[in-house]
């Protein structure tokens, strides 16, 4: 492990070879135009067989290692007290240093259980940035979710290394404003997905812990990308080069009161989640809810084999060669786009590259969703599927039904772990040559159907 690794951009070698492949279908542009129209111009509604490079999400889309697949075969499917559960529990306790481990079928279930236990009407949650499902879970309990990401994050071009940080000044103000008794929790999302996959520094985390301790507040780590965050702390924060990625993660976890994780990211698995807490009383309440909606406390809605794979994945993810490859392959795409003059959120985050669609498609008005336009163009031109993280995902309406746009109009190219080769990424870069030719276009999209919450998943659009 060393500093020079991050700076040298030699050909990126994967610390693994391919053992099983999944054939892909190659489609024509005419075919894709039709497929997209059928999907209501929402890539979430496309059939995955019609997608060539799927950058929709890095969640649950990773390739497991042969060791994990061996774990899949060894999974103990006993309903209660399975050895796969005991394996997972031991690994999670060791990583988090927290005594109460609750398995869930995926991350949103862990969030729902914890936030409905500590939240409710009148309660406030404060976060660097709540992710979309997190916000939905909180608002579903009639509590309020407030985002206060640091000022530096608002500038897409600055080199500031920790744009995932929370704004400490605002945090103090909000604590004073709402009173600690009304604040259900402070949630630190590491890395900060919605603000560009940007890391949170240890310094910032320590300061949050201090505020929490002084005001008796509950600190939750939403740590589905905790290993990727540790990579950035190791390389970019003073004093951490001598610590391993795992030690850095453990230091951050040691300051947290609870840990929720969608294991589909840094757990290197296709399904699974975790809720881990330090306090026994909260764990008892959460276990009651777990049994109702997820499953018994020793499987939580996961098959034994999935718990086995997760136990192995949580160890593999902290491997220094893996993490280096992982972060560097995301950086490779980001730097390639930047070189072409595509406006991206800088510095490049851990799991995805975020394109500034407002900047790229300057002529498309915000109420016509420039991000959605880019997402559709990428599919038509290259069979690439990605997601809008802007006004479609986070926009609201005022009392006149006019769109209140989100702060940013981003498009996320999320990189599944250990799935695509450098040639795939080079192909993606080539497709952006076609996109650059479209940058003067003026017309976007309107929404023709939308559900009451989490509309980006199922909304339909029409090109204007």
């Amino acid at each position: 492990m060393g500093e020079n690794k991050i700076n040298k951009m030699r050909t990126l070698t994967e610390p693994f070879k391919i053992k099983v492949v999944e054939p892909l279908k190659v489609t024509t542009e005419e075919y894709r135009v039709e497929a997209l129209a059928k999907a209501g111009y929402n890539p979430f509604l496309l059939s995955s067989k019609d997608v060539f490079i799927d950058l929709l999400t890095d969640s649950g889309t990773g390739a497991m290692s042969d060791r994990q697949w061996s774990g899949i075969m060894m999974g103990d499917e006993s309903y209660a007290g399975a050895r796969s559960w005991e394996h997972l529990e031991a690994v999670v306790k060791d990583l988090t240093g927290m005594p109460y481990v609750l398995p869930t079928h995926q991350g949103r279930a862990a969030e729902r259980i914890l936030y409905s236990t500590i939240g409710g009407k009148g309660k406030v949650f404060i976060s660097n940035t709540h992710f979309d499902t997190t916000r939905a879970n909180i608002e579903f309990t009639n509590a309020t979710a407030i985002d206060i990401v640091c000022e530096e994050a608002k500038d897409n071009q600055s080199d500031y290394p920790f744009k995932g940080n929370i704004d400490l000044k605002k945090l103090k103000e909000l604590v004073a404003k709402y009173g600690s008794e009304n604040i259900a929790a402070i949630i630190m999302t590491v890395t900060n997905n919605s603000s560009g996959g940007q890391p949170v520094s240890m310094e910032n985390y320590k300061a949050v812990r201090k505020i929490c301790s002084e005001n008796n507040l509950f600190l939750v780590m939403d740590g589905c990308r905790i290993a990727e965050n540790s990579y950035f702390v190791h390389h970019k924060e003073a004093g951490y080069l001598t610590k391993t990625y795992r030690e850095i993660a453990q230091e951050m976890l040691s300051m947290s009161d609870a840990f929720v994780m969608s294991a589909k990211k840094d757990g290197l698995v296709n399904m699974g989640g975790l809720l881990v807490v330090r306090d026994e009383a909260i764990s008892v309440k959460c276990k009651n809810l777990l049994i109702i909606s997820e499953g018994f406390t020793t499987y939580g809605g996961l098959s034994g084999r999935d718990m086995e794979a997760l136990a192995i994945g949580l160890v593999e993810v902290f491997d220094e060669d893996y993490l280096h490859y992982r972060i560097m392959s995301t950086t490779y795409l980001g730097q390639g786009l930047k070189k072409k003059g595509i406006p991206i959120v800088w510095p490049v985050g851990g799991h995805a590259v975020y394109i500034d669609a407002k900047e790229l498609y300057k002529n498309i008005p915000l109420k016509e969703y420039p991000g959605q336009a880019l997402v559709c163009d990428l599919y038509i031109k290259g069979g690439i599927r990605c997601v809008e993280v802007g006004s479609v995902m986070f926009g609201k309406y005022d009392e006149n039904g006019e769109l209140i746009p989100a702060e940013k109009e981003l498009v996320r190219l999320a990189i599944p772990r250990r799935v695509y080769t450098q040639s795939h990424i080079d192909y993606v870069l080539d497709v952006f040559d076609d996109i650059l030719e479209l940058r003067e276009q003026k017309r976007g999209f309107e929404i023709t159907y939308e559900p009451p919450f989490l509309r980006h998943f199922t909304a339909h659009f029409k090109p204007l």
Partner: protein
Amino acid sequence: MANKFEKRSWAEPYRMKMVELLKMTTKSQRDKAIKEAGYNTFLLHASDVYIDLLTDSGTNAMSDQQWGAFMTGDEAYAGSKSYYLMEKAIQKYYGYKYVIPTHQGRGAENILSQILIKKGDFIPGNMYFTTTRLHQELAGGTFVDIIIDEAHDANSEYPFKGNVDISKLDDLVKKVGAKKIPYVCIATNVNMAGGQPISMANLKELREYTHKHGIRIIHDMTRVAENAFFIQQREEGYAKRTIESIVLEICSLTDGATMSAKKDALVNIGGFLATNEWDVYEEARNLVVVYEGLHTYGGLAGRDMEAIAVGIKESLCDHHQKARVGQVEYLGKKMEEYGVPLVKPFGGHGIFVDAKAFLPHLTQDQFPAQTLAAEIYADSGVRTMERGIVSAGRKANGENYYPKLELVRFTIPRRVYTQAHMDVIAESAAVVYDRRKKIKGLTMIYEPKYLRFFQAKFEKIK
């Protein structure tokens, strides 16, 4: 073909392709293990269990065909091809129009209850099931038992103890009005009655009645193929019909379904909600994102949806069901020969021992079924489950429910254990039965708020 083998052994229509090694334990190890588990078999470590009959849920052995499909699972977040395969299998074999995958059965129950039940509603059903009733109650509804009286009588040999007593339903409709009844919940087979089937004739009668009053039938279909097997064997006019066609007919008499695919569908995880109503589907699609996952994966890995699609098809094969239910029957007959008191007729997924008759010297407050399950484990390492007063829980006013049935369930996982395993189980029940008079009851020392049977702890009465 079926007749030719009628009187011969039920030999499995498969052979073993992969095995899982088991640990053998001593009596003193087991005595210690069950004590540490608070005399609750749920709290035992699986590695201390020799034959695990805790549940048939998610404990199945998948076939090589399923494992093959498993490897082709498409893990795309949206629009996975595995989802479309599963959807197609459900539409083809169960006949429902719209499908929402969920991580398991209770995920589907949760969503359905929230959509259909309003505060103050009543949900009649052919006997309660623990998680089902809880979701109904959490949504503001009240469960009403409308199963026939025979179901509560361990000694009745009525062939369709899962049937609905239409007059009980009619009483409820007259009392509260059809508008307060969003649906009738029909389980195939009825788990809490001992894996007992509902007859097609009864279901048809119920369909006619509910049509007249504009009430939906929601099908809790986790063991529908096993129910169909009993219809084929016992009901007039169905002997020549395939299980596949009987299952389709059952489903056609209902409006929607929740399913834990962990039973009949021969997988280790998974479930779904199915409906013929677009409005219900649309609302479910919105809710599933909050609780489970996007509507094209619902909290399931792509590979698990593949395995379900194959498993549904395999479960409808007549030979499979004959071996499946045949094995349960083999165990039952063997235990019966040893004089162990059992619920009759034998159910589809397990043998239910009548703990009240087994341990008549214990009162229900001394948890006879809980006691017996602990004794069986200590004797042989066979893990069974209590289905009596502990499972029944408490009423809203805090009083215990006192269910008429106090049972120990010996649930048989599908395609996992051999005939020799069945012999070991029956012998253990016989040995414990021989010394039944010396067995003392239990007291509860820890009781959780919901679904207490999962986590409650007990002590032996001195």
